[in-house]
């Protein structure tokens, strides 16, 4: 059978690793459509032929669920992630995140690269975390909001911005950035990647795929990339 998976683009790397293994093992064909969660969600609303949706954003999944577009009982949180502060300069000393951190003077003239703080999940989480430590208002004017986490990452990687806030997974995958701090898990809403089958989906391939995500093989790939298991 065939299974079409709409997945948040921050999962590109891991899902592309899983794809051939899943196909070899089950004989099904996997089609991955990778784009921003919001785009994918809207396309599903408009009748996109998705069987499975993996969102980087709980809100959009809620929305689809509310509209009755997902198969009941199939939704669960697949992955978790952590938020880190990264720097371009490898010599940057680690910092400890807390209300006393003077992020503003660390930045100097530079910018803090984040995802769109009101739309891209990584940005939304980052803003919440900074708020949590009362750092947001001081640093807000210096934030450069990128279209997605990857773009935020490349601002830092290219040196255009000295610091940035991204997922740990992204930071690990990029050689040109250094992690200088990790945000405590409690400082922001939990970073979750919910997965669900669509109401229109059926066939063995869909269930096989959902099951495959839980195999040790898949979990190893996720862990290797830096994803955590959501403790739900």
């Amino acid at each position, binding site marked *: 059978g065939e299974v*079409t998976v*709409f997945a948040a*683009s*921050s999962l*590109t*790397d891991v899902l*592309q690793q899983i794809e051939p293994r899943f196909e070899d093992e089950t004989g099904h064909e996997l*089609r*991955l*459509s*990778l*784009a921003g969660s919001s*785009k*994918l969600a*809207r*396309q599903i609303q*408009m*009748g*996109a*032929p998705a069987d499975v949706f993996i969102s980087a954003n709980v809100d959009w999944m809620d929305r689809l669920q509310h509209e009755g577009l997902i198969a009941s009982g199939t939704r669960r949180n697949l992955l978790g992630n952590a938020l880190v502060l990264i720097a371009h300069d490898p010599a940057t000393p680690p910092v400890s995140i807390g209300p006393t951190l003077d992020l503003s003077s660390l930045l100097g003239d530079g910018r803090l690269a984040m995802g769109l703080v009101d739309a891209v999940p990584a940005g939304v989480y980052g803003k919440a975390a900074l708020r949590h430590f009362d750092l947001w208002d001081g640093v807000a004017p210096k934030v450069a909001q990128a279209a*997605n986490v*990857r773009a935020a990452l*490349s601002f830092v990687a290219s040196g255009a911005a000295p610091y940035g806030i991204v997922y740990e997974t*992204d930071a690990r*995958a*990029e050689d040109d950035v250094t992690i200088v701090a990790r945000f405590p898990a409690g400082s922001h809403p939990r970073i979750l990647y919910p997965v669900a089958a669509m109401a229109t989906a059926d066939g063995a391939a869909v269930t096989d795929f959902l099951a495959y995500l839980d195999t040790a093989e898949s979990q190893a790939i996720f862990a290797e990339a830096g994803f955590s298991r959501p403790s739900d």
Partner: protein
Amino acid sequence: MEWLTPEEWQAVALSLRVAFWATLFCLPVGVFIAYVLARWTFPGRQALNILVHLPLIMPPVVTGYLLLIAFGTQGGVGAFLQETFGLTFAFRWTGAALASGVMAFPFMVRATRLSIEAVDPKLEQAAATLGASRAWVFATVTLPMILPGILAGCVLAFAKGMGEFGATITFVSNIPGETQTIPLAIDLALETPGGEARALRLAVISVGIAAGALALSEWVSRRMAARIGGA
């Protein structure tokens, strides 16, 4: 190491197909609209003009969403086309071609229109006195004389077809082998850690194809100019 994965070759083939059909779709409609805008006066002309420029003014994502709403399987136009002609655009390569075509449309129209406006109306008048009706004048005098402009429009449309990203991914999503054109594949490569080399390879191929099309068009248009200029 393979230069490109089979999936990437698919993207190249698909891009060619999409750019080709996008251009082909733009061509007759664009030339017609250009003629209408250049030579007719009627109420609503300005509105049509704005409509033509819309894909340029709006962020591509918006165009993509509008297409999704109109041509999605749920959309009115989409449902109608599917029922009557069996034509589906949603999440199909045809939709990618449609999105590219729509995005390229303003250039096609502008290039053609500029050429039409440069045609000496005295020649069209001469053709009319010799018995050619409006349609024949267009076919035998205006059209041959604006071929360079149409060609320029086609090149722009083709180039845009090779490069369109925002409207395409929004409208038909990124489905390998079906809607994943080169720009979508490049974007994906850039999303993947260490994907820069792959993105570069794809970009080089894309530029190479477009360069070929450009060179061809330059050659054709020089030939046409030489023929008219006296040889």
